[in-house]
């Protein structure tokens, strides 16, 4: 049984989805197999889109202290003025 999409990394899911699309497009699959692959592809797609939409950047500070005084909104404003 294939791994649950949520247990895959984004890259793994992306690679698997690519392989599925190529396999389906090769037009060599039996109906049952293409159905299984299609369902898997839909699950992977859903997982990839959700991950991408819900992702929140995480920053782990391993050395030094990240200076947070520069607020991004402010920087953006300054950049747009420049």
């Amino acid at each position, binding site marked *: 049984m294939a791994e649950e999409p949520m247990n895959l990394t984004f890259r793994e899911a992306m690679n698997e989805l690519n392989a599925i699309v190529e396999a389906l497009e090769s*037009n060599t699959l039996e109906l049952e197999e293409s159905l299984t692959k299609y369902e898997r592809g*839909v699950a992977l797609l859903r997982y990839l889109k959700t991950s991408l939409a819900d992702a929140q*950047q995480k920053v*782990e*500070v391993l050395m*030094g202290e990240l*200076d947070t005084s520069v607020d991004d909104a402010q*920087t953006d404003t300054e950049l747009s003025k420049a």
Partner: protein
Amino acid sequence: MVDTREGSSDNQRKALSVSAAVNIAKSVLSEHTFHIVGEVSELNQKPGYKAVYFTIKDESASLPCLMWISRYKSAGVPLRLGARVEVVGRFTIFAPKGRMNFDVSSLRLAGEGDLRAQVAQLALKLRNEGLMDAARKRPVVPYPQRIGLVTSPRGAAVHDVLRTLRRRYPLATILFAGVPVEGKQAAQGLIQGLQTVIQAGAEEVLLVRGGGSFEDLMPFNDEALARFIASSPVPIITGIGHEPDTSIADMVADLRASTPTAAAEAVSPSKEDLFATLDSMAQRMTAVFTHRISRSINYVQAYESRPIFRDPNYLFSNDLQLADHYQTRLEQSMGRFGVTDASRLEQMQLRLGRAIPQSLEDQKRALVQAAQRLNSTLGNQLTVHEHALSLRSLALNQTGKTLLDPYKQCAALITSRLQDLSPLAALERGWSITKDDRGGVVRSIDQTKPGAKLAVQVTDGVIDCTVDETTPNPLIAIQDLP
């Protein structure tokens, strides 16, 4: 000093020899040490010479210099034409030629020219070692999970990178090492930062800093840093300063971007592009799958239109006719010969028993297979989530159900008819089957004789008998069964 007043008696002085005069001048000149800056304009450096001879100049003057080989070597600075140098030494005179020289005791490259030359020299050395070969450079990691970031914790660069990655690709965790990027210890700090994020699992590392002067960027020209980058187990992407500054770190990195933001963009696919890619994959997948389904539907429809599925009687018509035929014959025979003609009846029953279950078995198997194929094909339609496919699936499923109903009715009919015709039913009605001691069915008195053993099979068991005598049936001569 030369007295120009010839014949003067008051200041009568002895004329100096050339050597003496030159020596006096020489000693006066060499009293002072000078620091002189100039551009090397001539250079004479031959093997075997005890000194290096060169000339330094500025816009309006030039000065021949010499530097003893031992001193030149210890200075460690290679002279080249056009180099701006600072020399320390004294004026002197080469007596045999009467020529003034500047005797250089120490030499260094002057100002920025010094740094640039050193960097250029290191770059050349590392290039010759192959550290900058294109073949060594690794591609950036597609869809990275963990991206290392080594830069100053202060300033715009770190925020440029974080903002760019958050906007484009928030999926990745950023492993950040904030280290000083200027000063003497900076190179060592950068190496430590790289080590730290790589150990923490970074799949690739961004090494960035904002623009600065050539001197500011010197830590990125450090040899140890360059060697660390070249031997790093993961790709390192630089975004240092702005064009046209190219540091040695840039040259040995796997990918060189011109700014921190550009470096961040280089390692991150953009969210918008990714969504577009996913949408296009979804479309491709659905299109090709829909096509695949309609191919299967056509296939099933081709079967559906065959007579065997249109008219259930078609499948069993032969057997039904055959059964009717045997029934008629059986009724005729029974009417003709009465219940006493056990052997004839038994023969017919046996033949019926052989013929009907056999053909029914074949038909049943075919029917089961067809039903299985239908089931597996039709069953699949139901799981398709696309609306259009669901509709088709529903239609097919409906067809499947209506297809099976006539078979069920037909099968029930056949079963009940078989029940009627079964030899077992005949046994229940009082008929029996007689077998000889080899198990063969005894159909004729010719097959046995007085004294032989017979086994008579009745509905609930077997009666073992011995034949006393046999009596022929007087009507046997007109028997004519097929």
